[in-house]
């Protein structure tokens, strides 16, 4: 039987009940949320039962306005045989961004989790080598969080003489 979004949704609800929520199929990919404590269980279930054996992408998003759910970790999983993708997201508070690592299941998650740690400070519990990957080791902040805006391009109080704009 061909795997459909509805079927995946039913299976997930059957297994996890109300711990999986916010199903949406905007732009063709089934996306849904689960609790941070459940992420490995859901990913393992998708892997074992529904054939999502390929982790396409893992990244973070920062929503500073969502109270206690400021950091969101997004997984894109792919079932090659049925050629269907799902997007799973989990939200964690910025004060305690603890997420279980998926790197034991997918080797590819190793660096993607390091990257997410590097930019958002997500603490992947159980990761074997959680350190910065693209930024310098001495960096003491997480640059892709929204609290670090880029410079306003219209500012005029800066001495630009050195750059030919003075």
């Amino acid at each position, binding site marked *: 039987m061909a795997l459909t979004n509805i079927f995946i949704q039913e299976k997930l609800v059957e297994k996890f009940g109300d711990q999986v929520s916010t199903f949406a199929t905007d732009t063709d990919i089934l996306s849904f949320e689960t609790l941070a404590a459940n992420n490995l269980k859901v990913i393992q279930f998708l892997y074992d039962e529904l054939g999502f054996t390929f982790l396409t992408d893992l990244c973070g*998003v*920062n929503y500073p306005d969502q109270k206690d759910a400021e950091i969101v970790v997004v997984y894109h999983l792919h079932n*090659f045989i049925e050629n269907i993708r799902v*997007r799973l997201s989990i939200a964690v508070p910025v004060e305690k961004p603890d997420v279980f690592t998926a790197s034991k299941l997918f080797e*590819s998650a*190793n660096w993607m989790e390091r990257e997410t740690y590097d930019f958002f400070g997500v603490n992947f519990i159980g990761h074997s080598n959680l350190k910065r990957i693209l930024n310098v080791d001495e960096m003491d902040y997480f640059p892709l969080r929204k609290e670090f805006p880029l410079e306003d391009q219209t500012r005029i109080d800066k001495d630009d003489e050195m750059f030919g704009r003075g």
Partner: protein
Amino acid sequence: MEAHKNIDLPQGSIEKRTTTLNIGPTHPATHGVFQNIMEIDGERVVSSEQTVGFIHRAFEKLAEHRNLYQITPITDRLNYCSSPINNMGWHITCERFLKVEIPKRVDYLRVIIMELARISDHLICNSIVGVDTGAYTGFLYVMQYRELIYEIYEEVCGSRLTTNIGRIGGFERNFTNTAFTKLEKFLNEYPKVLKEFESLFTRNRIFMERTQGTGGITAARAMNYGFTGPNLRAAGVDYDVRVANPYSSYQDFDFTIPVGTTGDNYDRFLVRNAEMWQSLSIIKQAYEKVQSFKGAEAEIFHADVPEYYLPKKEDVYNNMEALIWHFKIIMGEVHLPKGQIYSAVEGGNGELGFYLVSDGGRTPFRLHFRRPCFIYYQAYPELITGGMLSDAVVTMSSLNLIAGELDA
């Protein structure tokens, strides 16, 4: 007399059996800014650790402060061996997100450019594998055909390496006759060159002995490591985004996906070579389809998306509406719809994905690039451990690692 003691070590120190060797960050064997800290025992690699991020330029942060059309030049600098694919991938992501209908002719023109880019990407990768095994001739010989591809880009968009080609909705101008003449020249002359390039390498005994059985990976491990593109296909998985999730009307073309079996350096080389033949055939088909448009249809080179496609300059000077759109686009005053999308294209070295999150503002709320070589480079220690140091160099070049994409 004590047997086998090279140097007198200070008391209390431990004699180290292996040698630590730093390759990179800048080294002729790395073809890019990569650092490998290898433990070697004689010439055998015992373990290695990679350091990446030397040319990290914070593209994802930059993209949060730019309008959609300003992000295209950022994508140029990902995999700069095939920047048109990155540009088109970004345009296609935006078009899918904005639900823009693209005319067929634009799709076919895009396919021509993307397949040319794929050829130039594979050409560089394969000839560099040749250079690293000691055969420089192929590299020099094919370079003039990469030059011809760059001339076609130049004719279409005005630049060569970082192309910034096309716009959201299509191309900035129609293809000129010179562009088509150069394309015909390429289609006529390139098969002979590729044939000769293949006969230089494919059954070359030195080349085969250097590449067969080195840097191999099984299909299951390759999938677990997130391999995509030719590297995954060389391991035997027939996954290609052009077929799995067609974009830009790839479903209209007839082509096959070459696969390997062992996933070693030789198979990767063969898969890339075979893909170049397929790309050539796709370009031929696309060119025929483009030529089949007659009359007004043959002049279409962009879709009707006034919110994102810059109007013609003469319209801007003479037409109020065009002036308004021009101003709104340039000043970035167009608001995006809310939502999120993941859209992928088959890049030169794998699935190049764009994950775009919008909160309804003028710039993306978050843009994440799924860079294929960032993901598969983590398999490198597994590929080289136990092999010779000189094979590690070949493995690195046959993985088609592009530092610009890896470090984003």
